[in-house]
């Protein structure tokens, strides 16, 4: 399967469950994307400050800075070409609240990662059009 848009992307994966985080990183790498890993919201924002990313793919419930914290901090940076996606087992926010946080979408755990990749690929393609 070719992911023409994703393969040129730089992606930050953030999850405090290291085993899952590594698996997700592995899956993104298979598309050809450049992938960076972080295991907390605090670590995530440090990576964003030091490198340009196209996508931040983050868990919500984490110690040391959760997904909401990370989204808010990114919002403050006003990075128009960076898209934040939540990847969570439980999200209590409404669509309106997600928009306020400038979050582009929510993927629920567990969901076929192939579908996640296809959706993201399509999303990036549309944004670049």
């Amino acid at each position, binding site marked *: 399967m070719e992911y023409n848009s994703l393969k040129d992307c730089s992606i930050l994966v953030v999850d405090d469950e290291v085993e899952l985080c590594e*698996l997700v990183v592995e899956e993104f790498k298979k598309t050809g994307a450049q992938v960076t890993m972080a295991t907390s919201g605090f670590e995530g924002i440090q990576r964003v400050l030091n490198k340009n990313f196209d996508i931040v793919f983050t868990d919500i419930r984490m*110690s040391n800075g959760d997904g909401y914290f990370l989204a808010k901090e990114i919002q403050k940076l006003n990075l128009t070409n960076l898209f934040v996606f939540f990847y969570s*087992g439980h999200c209590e926010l409404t669509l309106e609240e997600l928009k306020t946080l400038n979050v582009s979408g929510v993927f629920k*755990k*567990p969901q076929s990662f192939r579908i996640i990749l296809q959706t993201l690929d399509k999303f990036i393609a549309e944004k670049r059009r």
Partner: protein
Amino acid sequence: MGFNLKAQHHPQEAERLKSLLHLKILDTYPEREFDQITKIASYICGTPIALISLVDTQRQWFKSKIGLEATQTSRDFAFCAHAILQTGPFIVKNAASDERFFDNPLVTGDLGIKFYAGVPINDPISKLPIGTLCVIDKKTRDLSSEQIEMLSALAEQVNSLLQLRIDYKELKKFEEKLIIHRTAFNQMLEGMVLQNNKDEVLDYNQAALTVLGVTEDQLLKKSSFDPEWNAIKLDGSPFEPYEHPSVVAMTTGMPQANTIMGIKVGAAEPRWIMINSTPIHLDSEKNPTHTVTTFADITSAKRSEEQLYYSAKMSSLGEMAAGMAHEINTPLAIISIAAENIRMACAHSNVDIETVIKKANQIDATVGKIAQIITSLRSYSRSSVTDKTEEIVLSNSIKETITLCQEKLTLHQIEINIDVPNDIKVRSLNSHLLQILLNLINNSVDAIDQTPNPWIKIETKLTKDSALLTVTDSGKGIPLGIQEKMMRPFFTTKSPGKGTGLGLGISQRLAESMNAKLYYDPSSTQTRFVIELPLAK
């Protein structure tokens, strides 16, 4: 010599009059027993008149009279007023020639009294003379010694009758009291039984039959040792006869309060009663001779309480739901990705056996994590209404609890430290224990969340019969004013919406229901609660 020599007052006149009034006999209707005495006196002495005369302030009043119409005469003329000053019989053989009475209107008037013989009658309590039994004749005469003796004996009979009258009145009062007590006893909503020192039921009220759901035959003369009793404790274990509150009250001599007992009749759900038993010491006996036991049906109250426990449990489950969803969905995501990897490899005929085995192992291990969460959830949410205590490994219960709240602890960055050996077995109800531990941990998290370097430590200490499970957190203890109130239902120091205030109160009741104790340890410099659990034997 002046007109009619009046009798002097008795040396204890005031008390004498008080005694007379106290008898409440003045101006009462004639009574057959008194009339029979005057009749006999008149007959024995051969006089036309016989009286039982009571000497009042201004008059003498006749309780009984033979041969006289008047019911009373003035005390000023009364022979009896003289007679009560004597200790023995007072006899006037011829009043007309007696300097004390010759001009007395009762002597000079129509009545024309010549002869008088009176014997004082005394108040049974004060022993003071209140009147006389007297015989009167209109002619001069005398009495033989036998007649005087008989008259004195009859006066004694009057004394006895007065005593009986007092006894009867007391008895009547006592009977009235008894009727009130008996009515109250029978109309009480609480059951009540009176047992002797062999624990046999001697008496009971109507409510006792209703509350216990038994017939008279099943209760009267039966004891706690009767094999037909099927009593259980809150934890479902049998209530041994020697543990029954009446038996304990009898053997220890100490009142037994608020014991809860389940009574099983047939296959129906047990009927729950709360019992109070008090020993009774009759005649200053050293050991109790009886016990009086009261009991109320608390089945519906207990059911409401169980519903409250259940609501509190469900409320905690609701609070945990978000964390649980995350805890389960994260390993499911691992499984999903691993399975997808295998499927993709197969689809592209690119199967590397080593990778497949690695992924399968990853799936297995992750399934184990989810299974652990589900086991803990099942232990926690299990309905415990009919559960009995069982032997449980304490460290397992703690692991299950931590599984349920691990996500919350991680999220709030609270360090958890567990020091509980794997070989400690206690007698407990696992779901109750999990609920108590979870309540304590949740309270700790709420209390220390915003403090630097928060931690919770769970440890055990063993005594001869118990395991003391302590839950300590990095908080600096609970103020004295709050310590006193915190176990009450609905008391909370949490902000609105954060706590129902049911946690600690319910936890304490849950602990009691499985023969354990939950208390705060004020001696600790940190906030510490202790769960005292009976060791499994």
